[in-house]
């Protein structure tokens, strides 16, 4: 399974599978943001997706594929995640009548643990280190026979995320560029492979916090350069390194990766919440920050109609004041 390369047909099948389960999220526009960007921006609202982020697509596809590949009783699934993938997997599993074990760091936000439980997932807490997450997950898998579903490095997850690309091509016929946030790289891998296969003139950009710019560094050097530490960015969904399965797709299909500062992320948050009336988490607006950055605005390549993926909206509302810029930088 790990060696299997995802191609467009592998994305088109999930598109059918997801119909009626995942939402075909709307694409919204905003005159003010167009003016600021100097371009026409098309926001793909994955904050409105089931479970509050695009992760539902990959999770649902992966579990569906697992079910269709076995004739016996469906095995449970397991993952380790402090955030959106946890919620997505729990909800997708619940909808497909499968048990989900979710290993979460003890320090994960209480609201996320409760959301996972609310979706029927079983939460197993662990020490907040990468090692503990993986070891606990492996123990659960051994004890229960659960199948591990990675948040971004599973081909079925990448294929599921790629369905956003298919929808964008339909929803924005005049599309000539896409910007997506990049953490583990599942979304960027899936969307970029769809674009370059079906509409190669569409430019694909990743957007990353400067503080967590392993993907940008990797693309520049031509080899994967993971960070050795856990970066401290408010874009908490993008702290993980771009993974080894997503990397080849990104290396081959992504035109560039734009880094943004924490301040640019906060400005983007303020603009999206205030002007577009959408609840989007910091990781979710990193693409917006990239579109509004001086470096992107200065680019000469044709990118008049730019889709920006708002990847999710799961955050603790009580923390909002710390995530907005003090005054709107218009």
């Amino acid at each position: 399974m790990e060696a299997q390369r995802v191609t467009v047909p592998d994305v088109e099948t999930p598109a059918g599978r997801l119909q009626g389960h995942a939402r075909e999220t709307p694409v919204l526009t905003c005159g003010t943001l167009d003016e600021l960007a100097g371009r026409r921006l098309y926001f793909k609202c994955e904050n409105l997706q089931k479970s509050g982020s695009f992760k539902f697509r990959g999770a649902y596809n992966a579990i569906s594929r697992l079910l269709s590949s076995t004739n016996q009783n469906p095995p449970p699934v397991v993952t380790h995640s402090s955030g959106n993938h946890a919620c997505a997997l729990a909800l997708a599993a619940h909808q497909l009548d499968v048990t989900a074990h979710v290993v979460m760091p003890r320090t994960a936000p209480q609201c996320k643990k409760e959301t996972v439980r609310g979706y029927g997932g079983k939460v197993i807490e662990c020490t907040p280190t990468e090692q503990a997450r993986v070891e606990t997950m492996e123990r659960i898998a051994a004890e229960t026979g659960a199948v591990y579903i990675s948040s971004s490095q599973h081909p079925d997850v990448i294929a599921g995320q790629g369905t956003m690309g298919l929808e964008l091509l339909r929803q924005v016929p005049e599309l000539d560029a896409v910007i997506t946030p990049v953490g583990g790289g599942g979304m960027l891998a899936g969307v970029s492979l769809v674009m370059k296969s079906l509409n190669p003139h569409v430019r694909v950009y990743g957007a990353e916090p400067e503080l967590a710019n392993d993907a940008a560094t990797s693309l520049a050097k031509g080899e994967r350069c993971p960070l050795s530490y856990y970066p401290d960015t408010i874009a908490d969904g993008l702290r993980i390194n771009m993974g080894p399965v997503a990397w080849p797709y990104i290396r081959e299909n992504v035109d560039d990766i734009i880094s943004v500062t924490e301040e640019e992320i906060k400005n983007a948050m303020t603009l999206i919440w205030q002007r577009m009336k959408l609840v989007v988490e910091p990781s979710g607006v990193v693409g917006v920050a990239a579109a509004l950055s001086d470096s992107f605005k200065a680019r000469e390549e044709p990118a008049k109609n730019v889709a920006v993926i708002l990847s999710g909206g799961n955050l603790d509302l009580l923390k909002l004041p710390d995530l907005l810029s003090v005054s709107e930088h218009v």
Partner: protein
Amino acid sequence: MTCSHLNQLSNRNLFFKCENLQKTGSFKFRGACNAVSKVVSTNQKSPDRELSVVTHSSGNHAQAVSLAAQVQGVTAHIVMPSNSPAVKKEAVRSYGGLIVECEPTEQSRVATADQVAERTGATMVHPNQSPDVMAGQGTMVFEILEQVERVDAIVVPVGGGGMLSGVSVAAKKLCPHAKIYAAEPKNADDCAVSMARGELTPLPAPPVTVCDALKTSIGPHTWPIIRDHVDDVITVTEEEIKAAMRLVWERMKLVIEPSSAVGVAAVMTDRFQRLPADGHQNIVVILCGGNVDLEHLPWMR
């Protein structure tokens, strides 16, 4: 939009008309556009005349009139209470509106607007008593009927009653079987009291409610329409409004202002829950706006 969690909580099929996503962040843009267009078309024979409009508003109508005027080449004078949220004043300025401040009372708003009209010759665009404004708000119904199959009821927040009258008139004509419910803060329940008494009963004093957009009373133009077309008024407490607002932010990922949450709170009340299931399955709830000061959210206080 829909939300399975809110459907479960309310035991209904809820369809949210997202006017928080409307131009200027609230449904008010519809009525404002319609009213300003009328001013322009009325003056078509004097193309050189500089046209202007004036209104008094706590925020949403102010922004709506400003932008509606700007796009049609008309000057907008906006009378706003001095204690209006800063973000709303900034938005009006950014849309080209010229602000004239007044005291935060109904009396001062009206008097100041009259003075500006006299001084400048501007045409008054009342936030909710103007027929053109009411008609503009009613355009929501055409869209709702295209977007939702078989509408059983529409729940509409009510302040001055412009949206409620426009929507109820249109709905009773186009889908007469659909029930129209007004939703109102208990702390500003002039519409509920008027319906109960059968006569227009404005609030005796400025109300204290988190719904800053619903503080005005229904008026002499909206009252008769409401009386004749609205099936019932459901009032909700401040706590219910704040809880509903937080629920929409957290589960639907939509930024709505407290006034928008009034309709959501209404469908969660025992009173609404007791309505028969028959004929009350598909409920349209209007989320009327999303202009809120992010630094002063109700759950942060």
